[in-house]
């Protein structure tokens, strides 16, 4: 097991190197110039050239890429062009909110999606199943920014129950997490339903019933545990999606988060922040994938035996 984890950690290196090269190239070939953007319309071509020289932006592509990779290897991510602060501290100040938003969003998705999916599967084609299917379709189709705005209108503007801005207390978190987690809940529910349907028809479920086991235990102890793999997969993917897609929710609820900071930085052509931010999200996503794979092994002994 330790060997497997070590192997997977080493495999992250080429993945992250690929991410670095791609985002660096995209940023390099982007026609926008950070110096011109900062100095404004009044800047003369000389001033801009001087500014670009100071930042090393006039060096050849390969030289800049080499310098960028070298800095990352030394864990030097540079300073933000805009704030002048180290990128690491800028990210560290904002990432916890984004991480919590995505994590709670997925947790909400699991808490709603798994029970509804199980009930749908055990009552296939019932009224409940149709209702849940309809809600699932609705949840998956509603854009989370629209849902967020509607929540604000209802619960902040009209009823005045919940704060519309920020992410500091549990009360603040209710609406953003609901907005971002609804789509995940729908997707997780559909996956749970189909995975459960597949498993409750399996022979081993019949065996469990033939033992005289109660239906509840048959469903939860036998069928659900076998149905978990695809559910874990979508939950992991959803976490990645929410991590990257939190920007809209962060904007609507004015949350100081990484997604919003990244978009702002793109407007400002703040290259160090963009590059490090994307790299950081890629790193987190790699870890989430590793965690998902380890969970597979935890759930399914057949997969565990392959982790050598």
């Amino acid at each position, binding site marked *: 097991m330790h060997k497997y984890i070590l192997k997977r950690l080493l495999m992250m290196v080429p993945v992250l190197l690929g991410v670095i090269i791609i985002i660096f190239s995209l940023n390099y070939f982007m026609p926008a110039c950070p110096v011109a953007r900062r100095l404004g319309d009044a800047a003369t071509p000389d001033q801009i050239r001087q500014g670009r020289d100071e930042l090393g932006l006039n060096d050849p592509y390969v030289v800049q890429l080499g310098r960028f990779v070298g800095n990352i290897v030394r864990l030097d991510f540079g300073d933000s062009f805009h704030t002048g602060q180290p990128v690491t501290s800028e990210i560290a100040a904002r990432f916890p909110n984004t991480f919590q938003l995505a994590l709670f969003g997925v947790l909400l998705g699991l808490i709603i999606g798994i029970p509804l999916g199980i009930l749908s599967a055990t009552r296939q084609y019932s009224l409940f199943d149709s209702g849940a299917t309809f809600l699932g379709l609705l949840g998956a189709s509603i854009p989370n920014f629209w849902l967020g705005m509607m929540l604000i209108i209802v619960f902040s503007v009209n009823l005045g129950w919940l704060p519309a801005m920020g992410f500091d207390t549990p009360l603040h978190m209710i609406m953003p997490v609901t907005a971002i987690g609804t789509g995940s809940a729908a997707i997780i529910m559909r996956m749970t339903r189909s995975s459960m349907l597949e498993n409750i028809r*399996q*022979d*081993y479920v*019949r*065996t*469990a*019933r*033939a*033992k*005289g*086991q*109660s239906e509840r235990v048959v469903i939860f102890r*036998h069928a659900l*545990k*076998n149905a978990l793999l695809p559910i874990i997969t979508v939950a992991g993917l959803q976490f990645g999606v929410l991590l990257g897609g939190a920007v809209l929710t962060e904007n609507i609820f004015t949350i100081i988060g990484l997604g919003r900071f990244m978009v702002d930085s793109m407007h400002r052509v703040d290259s160090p922040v963009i590059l490090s931010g994307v790299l950081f999200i890629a790193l987190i996503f790699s870890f989430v994938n590793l965690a998902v794979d380890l969970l597979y092994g935890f*759930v*399914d*002994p*057949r997969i565990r*035996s392959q982790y050598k």
Partner: protein
Amino acid sequence: MATANHLLEVNDLTIHFLLEDGVVKAVNDLSFTLNAGETIGIVGETGAGKTTTALGLMRLVQSPPGLVVKGEINFEGQNLLDLSENDMRKVRGNKISMIFQDPMTSLNPVMPVRDQIAEVILLHQNMSAKEAIVKAEEMLNLVGIRKERSKEYPHQFSGGMRQRVGIAIALACNPTLLIADEPTTALDVTIQAQVLELMKQLKQDLNTSMIMITHDLGIVADICDKVAIMYAGTVVELADKVDLFKNPKHPYTVGLFGSIPDITNDDDELKPIKGAMPDPTDLPSGCPFRTRCDHVRDACAAFNMQKTDVGNGHYVKCILFEGKGV
């Protein structure tokens, strides 16, 4: 009819599946009896309703679409169809248990085999979790699996060993009646012999009655006391094993025996029963076998499938013997 001296008495059991494109008549007016300690073989082609019968006895036919239309399953003097689901659960795995056809799929892949045996023990016997584990290991030992392997998962065992685990689960609570649904069909021939030998021996040691569902007449000859020949969901002939093998009556039974290739004859061709099993959504009127029978006559279409006792508890449902019983 007297129910007292039979362990199991099935009367006119009829199970249908109500599907959108028709009613599948899987089991029709099926009757047989079984005494304590006896083994009955239920023999028939694929699709004859054997597995549905077995699941019906356990009340495990999926409903919907399955529906027990009528009949009685008198077990130890109690009609199982009258029991509440809760009371029925106390029978399943405890007094009546089942060995399934495919050992590769009938065990839970994410549960150690020991726990799967302990589960049934915990359900029906007054034991702590620890005691149940010990008992489960004893059961594994009984079917020839070492204690050291008890924490392993099904995928770490061969098909034959998995079926032994299935047998251990079925016998863990010392059931009065064991239903074995083609327990050796999915196994290699050599493993088949081992598993059958094991079942025979355990049956003797534990004095369990058994319903052996099979399409293999060799297994019947080896292990059964009496035989019910099933066709299109009903028992067409029921007799003592020796009686049936020596003196088969029903044309279908005769055809079954005739289809066994004879190694001493140098025949190139097999002699199957011509035609195929009728569609269970559209069974012919009267005798369902008349579409394939060599002795078919006009009256067969109106035959009421009444059974005739031709002596020594040998029953046959065929118009050829109507009124010629004892």
